[in-house]
């Protein structure tokens, strides 16, 4: 049971959140300009590192807001929590 520190509500159990996968994957500005391969990368390919990983969570049963978490995918330790508008911490992917 992870303990995630919602930037707006404070620390809450994992069960209050939903997972949103890798953070910082922007929707392409003009999808039509992409090749099929590039579009496939956007659709389906995500980083899957063993170690620090910048990921998205949403506080679904709380404030319903999205935020980013840098978490180690092996130790499950939360290394940083930051708002979507904050810069990505060093060392994450």
């Amino acid at each position, binding site marked *: 049971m992870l303990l995630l520190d919602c930037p707006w509500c404070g620390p809450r159990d994992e069960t209050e959140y939903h997972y949103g996968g890798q953070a910082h994957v922007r929707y392409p500005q003009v999808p039509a300009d992409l090749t099929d*391969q590039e579009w496939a990368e956007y659709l389906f390919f995500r980083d899957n590192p063993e170690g620090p990983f910048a990921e998205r969570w949403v506080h679904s049963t709380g404030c319903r807001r999205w935020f980013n978490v840098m978490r180690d*995918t092996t130790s499950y330790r939360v290394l940083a929590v930051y708002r979507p508008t904050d810069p990505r911490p060093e060392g994450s992917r």
Partner: protein
Amino acid sequence: MTTNPLPEHPALLWRNPEPKPSYDAIVVGGGGHGLATAYYLARNHGIGNVAVLEKGWLAGGNMARNTTIIRSNYLWDESAGIYEFALKQWERLPEELDYDFLFSQRGVLNLAHTLQDVREARRRVDANRLNGVDAEWLDAEEVAEVCPIVNISPDVRYPVLGATLQPRAGIAKHDHVAWAFARAADALGVDLIQNCAVTGFVKDGDRVVGVRTTRGTVNAGVVGLAAAGHSGVLAEQAGFRLPVRSQPLQALVSELYEPVHPTVVMSNHVHVYVSQAHKGELVMGAGVDSYNGYGRRGSFHVIERQMAAAIELFPIFARAHVLRTWGGIVDVSPDASPIIGRTPVENLYVNCGWGTGGFKATPSAGWTMAHTMATGEPHPLNAPFSLERFTTGALIDEHGAAAVAH
């Protein structure tokens, strides 16, 4: 009351050789798929100069952690093809490998709890039958005849409206399966190298020519990745990305009980699947934890929810005891179907993305991967499961209508 222990293993399983400097083929990952790949490389293609490199102990990953369900009642033609091929192999492997791995064709029930479940189930039954996969639709009373402990009362939150039954499906003893393949591969000259982690790939231009390991560099003609949850990390070392996420999947066993559960029951709707293994323990799995994780552990609420669902379906389990829980790392692809085939790196092949379905596919994963590595071309069974499908859009989406993705 006394009972019988499991059958004895053969006196010799495998040698423990030192790695040679070079092999014709290297399989990275000594799980069920890796061992089967090595076995079929030797058996089907006469390539015996093969090493299986395992970073831990043989079959110590998902092979040791799965709930041992074997079935082939998948919806789409491509899936039915590869899983049914596996099932046909399962039916002959105990004899071929001369190893009693307790393959028990006790049937698998996939329960339907809503009208939508019923529609999807019946669609799958019809597709299965035309694909040569045995399948039947049972109403609730028939479900109770097959598995009397299922609660078919209409007065529960999600009543059982019926189920699909695949009579030829069942379970096998997972460790024994792996050891059977390992023993057979070893006997054909395959070197099974344990405690040997791959740390990088040796490339000549875009072509792989060897691997770097914690036990030195080993050259190879071809390299196949069969590393399940760790595929993405290896792919990154080789310089490409895979569309897979590694997530925790938990399972558990109970203590031993006198037989009460004659078959395998799966319910996608309430997220539980359960069988009673040969010694008498209930073996159960549930849904995948949501987050990426390599920790071989998940979160406890998933287990609790699974217990609630189990008792809803099987009131007799109320006073059963959970003995042990554990987690594996499953590599989940966007369409819940595997990826078997070429990679952007020449002579490097990949078999991954099985999610929760890997165990049952062990023979066909090995068979088709061996074919692909030996010939450089996919076998017809794995051709649809290429990486390219994510670009063309020709996904094989077993998420939606294929009942349970386990």
